[in-house]
């Protein structure tokens, strides 16, 4: 029971860290949540991903979004255009996920992310 409580508290703290990243960088937070659940709480990869998805169903970014919207940092037009694609793509992606080796797909994605990050940091530094 105490163990279970501790584990829950740990998950909550990890999620808070993900939330800070979410507000700070305008992301969903799942990109941190999935590795956190897998590394620290012994979730299987698919289970970590499923749990991350359910955590992102409620509008968890609402408070952060309000801060950005107040400052005028939202493009509604692009936002609305993106919605249908992301929804349909999500179904497609999870259908593919069931049929792929999760290790390979994670590695490809991690490499892509690292390259994107390095590019962003580089252009920011050169500005």
């Amino acid at each position, binding site marked *: 029971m105490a163990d279970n409580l501790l584990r*829950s508290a740990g*998950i*909550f703290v990890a*999620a*808070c*860290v*993900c*939330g*800070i990243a979410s507000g*700070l*960088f*305008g992301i969903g*937070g799942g*990109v*941190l*949540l*999935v590795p956190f659940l*897998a*590394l620290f709480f*012994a*979730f*299987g990869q*698919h*289970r970590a*991903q*499923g*749990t*991350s*998805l*359910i*955590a*992102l*169903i409620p509008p968890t*970014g*609402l408070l952060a*979004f*309000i*801060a*950005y*919207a107040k400052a005028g940092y*939202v*493009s*509604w037009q*692009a936002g609305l*255009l*993106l919605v249908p694609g*992301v*929804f349909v*793509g*999500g179904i*497609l992606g999870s259908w593919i*996920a069931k049929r*792929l080796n999760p290790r390979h797909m994670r590695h490809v994605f991690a490499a892509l*992310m690292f390259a*994107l*990050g*390095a590019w962003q*940091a580089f*252009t*920011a530094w050169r500005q």
Partner: protein
Amino acid sequence: MVAGRFQTREDRSDDLVDEKALPGRDRQSVMSLVVLLLGLGVGVLVGLLGIGGGVVLVPALVYLLHMDQHVAQGTSLFILLPPLGLGALREYWKQGQVDLRAGVLCAFGILAGGYLGGWIAVPLASRQLKGLFGCFLMLAAVLLWRKPQPQNQRTACAGEEPAGG
């Protein structure tokens, strides 16, 4: 005003793209198509990796649509408001790969943390924020890459049942 279709308000952030970067209506509609396809691509990653998608969306908006870093992040947060992962979640749910309790806990944690993060990000200079984002992406990539015992995925799933329940 026809030309004002994409500028209903004076607010610059309402434009789909930077005026200087892409003038003309034709290019505007081409960009709309690009945005639609971009959404589809991001969505595939959402389902594939169980993430929100913002991590790909933000750099895509910055580089493809020449958005300011703050606007890209705000727009990304906006599209994460509706439950877009619902379709993807259904597939995971059917396979019993969802920990509901942990998910609810995480939702509250992200909500609270998100408030703090937004509060930090808004006053920052765009350039600083861009650099920070880049560093964050690299860190997240490293975290995503390394994961213990990837070879026995199935046993790890079954083994965590007693600890989780």
